[in-house]
């Protein structure tokens, strides 16, 4: 197991390195002068701007800038926000909990809706329940989450006043954003789990289990459930980044201070260090989460461990 983790971590190194390069390069491609961004509103003279450019190291050749950037990264220093002059690490960290909570809650919504629905539908393909599940999943993928969020607020907080319209720190205020963000993924999971269940139910070992006298429920719980949860787990891992950025709009609508919305505004206002920091953090988080997913899949399916051992 440790071996597996080590190998995976080793494989992740070039990816993380690549992420830092991308973070660095992509942002430099965006037009607009960072010095001007910093001095926005200061009515700065060209000389002041030039001085600031020099201070920021923007006059250095690009590879030197990257070397400095990477060197700082190694020390855990993600730079200083152009806008607030606070450290990027601080800015990200102070917003991370809210986003993580929202992301986790959405995933929970997705799993709690998607997996049972998929199981039930897959057990009886073609049944009324299955048809229902499939329509739900179709609708789930089709409704844009931002539109859903708007509708949910209008109905459940403005009209019915069941949930608060903006975040107030309570779990209750998490319900609407989590549902609007998790709904689409619930739909995806439903489809995946359903397909997998159908496939598993057709497999030889299920036939063999039936030949030993296993009933439907036993087959579902003891034979199929574990195998069928693999696509759910891997999908969540792969979609992690997308859920996180999907949170950007949801966060804005529900007045949550989170990474997603922060990242979006930072990109549009060309707050370079923040974007770089966030890209690196998101990239690394993605790598780590998928490592965790691999471990989890390994725990579910012993064959994958074997494969990794090679």
């Amino acid at each position, binding site marked *: 197991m440790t071996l597996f983790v080590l190998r995976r971590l080793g494989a992740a190194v070039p990816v993380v390195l690549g992420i830092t390069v991308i973070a660095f390069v992509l942002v430099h491609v965006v037009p607009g002068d960072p010095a001007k961004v910093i001095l926005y509103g200061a009515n700065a003279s060209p000389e002041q701007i030039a001085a600031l450019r020099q201070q920021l190291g923007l006059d250095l050749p690009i590879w030197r800038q990257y070397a400095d950037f990477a060197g700082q990264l190694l020390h855990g220093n993600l730079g200083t926000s152009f806008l607030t002059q606070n450290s990027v690490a601080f800015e990200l960290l102070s917003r991370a909990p809210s986003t993580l909570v929202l992301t986790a809650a959405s995933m929970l919504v997705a799993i709690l809706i998607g997996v049972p629905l998929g199981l039930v539908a897959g057990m009886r393909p073609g049944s009324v329940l299955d048809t229902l599940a499939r329509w739900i999943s179709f609708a789930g993928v*089709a409704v*844009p989450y931002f539109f859903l969020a708007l*509708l949910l607020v209008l109905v459940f907080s*403005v009209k019915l006043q069941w949930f608060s319209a903006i975040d107030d720190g309570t779990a209750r205020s998490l319900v609407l954003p989590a549902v609007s963000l998790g709904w689409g993924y619930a739909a995806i999971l439903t489809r995946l789990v359903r397909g997998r269940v159908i496939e598993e139910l057709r497999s030889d070992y299920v036939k063999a289990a039936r030949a030993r006298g296993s009933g439907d429920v036993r087959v579902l719980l003891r034979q199929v459930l574990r195998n069928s949860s693999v696509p759910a787990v891997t999908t969540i891992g792969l979609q992690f*980044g997308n859920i996180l950025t999907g949170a950007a*709009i949801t966060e804005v609508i529900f007045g949550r201070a989170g990474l997603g919305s922060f990242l979006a505004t930072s*990109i549009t206002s060309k707050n370079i260090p923040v974007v770089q920091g966030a890209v690196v953090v998101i990239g690394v988080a993605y790598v780590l989460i998928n490592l965790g997913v691999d471990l989890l899949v390994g725990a579910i399916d012993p064959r994958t461990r074997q494969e990794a051992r090679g």
Partner: protein
Amino acid sequence: MTTDPLSMTVATRTPRPVGIKGLKATIGRAALLVAVLLLVVLLVAPGLLAHVDPVATSDANLRGPSASHLFGTDLLGRDIFSRTVHGARPVLLASLLGVLLATAAGVAIGVLGGVAPRLVNALVMRLVDVFLALPVLLIALILIATAGSGVRSIVLAIGVAFTPGFARVVESSVRRLRRAEYVEAARVFGSTTLRTSWRHLIPNLLTEVVVLGSSAIGWGVLTATTLSFLGLGVRLPAPDWGSDLAAGATNLADAWWLSTFPGLAIMATILLANFAGDHLMRVLDPREGVRFGRLFRPAAVRRSATRDGGDDA
């Protein structure tokens, strides 16, 4: 009402009345037919459906849906029906072209990665991994911020953001196909790598790619509208579902029609794209080439033909 590809390949548990089976095929075909027709009309001549100028303002502003304005009017008195119809163009164009771009790039990178020697493969696929680790919206946002606004940027954004996912799938398929015996067989009689790629790999990838691409269109629509919802890549006052939805968002309580119709349009498009994609997946037997004449033939009839042939002497 099976639309799932997996359940289509097996016999069903209980014999079902032919009517429902037929209906299922009909829905798939109808969805595809409607999708194609709509696509053509919306892209080529939206004016056929809505002859009111979508940007023409009038004094009749903020009117609810009525006979003269099917979907009502907005703050500037523009006809929402016309805006919804004409608004399809940027979204569809962006998602179709974007997905097309991603498909082309993904296939190119995937095939390259798949047939290249180990070192090149590692290099290419690591790069793909890097982009895969970055969320689609993030890539899109950065590109929009770079390339400025307009459909072109959204196309580019979707193209770039979707490419790594495609490349990954294609690469693993190529690697699988390369081990396929018929590809090895080609090596035995001395087919060059280039020829093998062209004759065997790419044609056999095609179905998969078509299916992948059609299922990505829904995501493309969602991404495109998300970007324009954020006010990025928008050209005013041209109609656009995302930005029109966003513009009406504050009016949802008092003038629901402003956001609702663009929202429904997005939903319908994604739904249709998914239906059509599912149908494609069902009718495009991986064992045969993509022959488009086949798309509108009933799936059941075709499959039985192949089955019969398969076991026959």
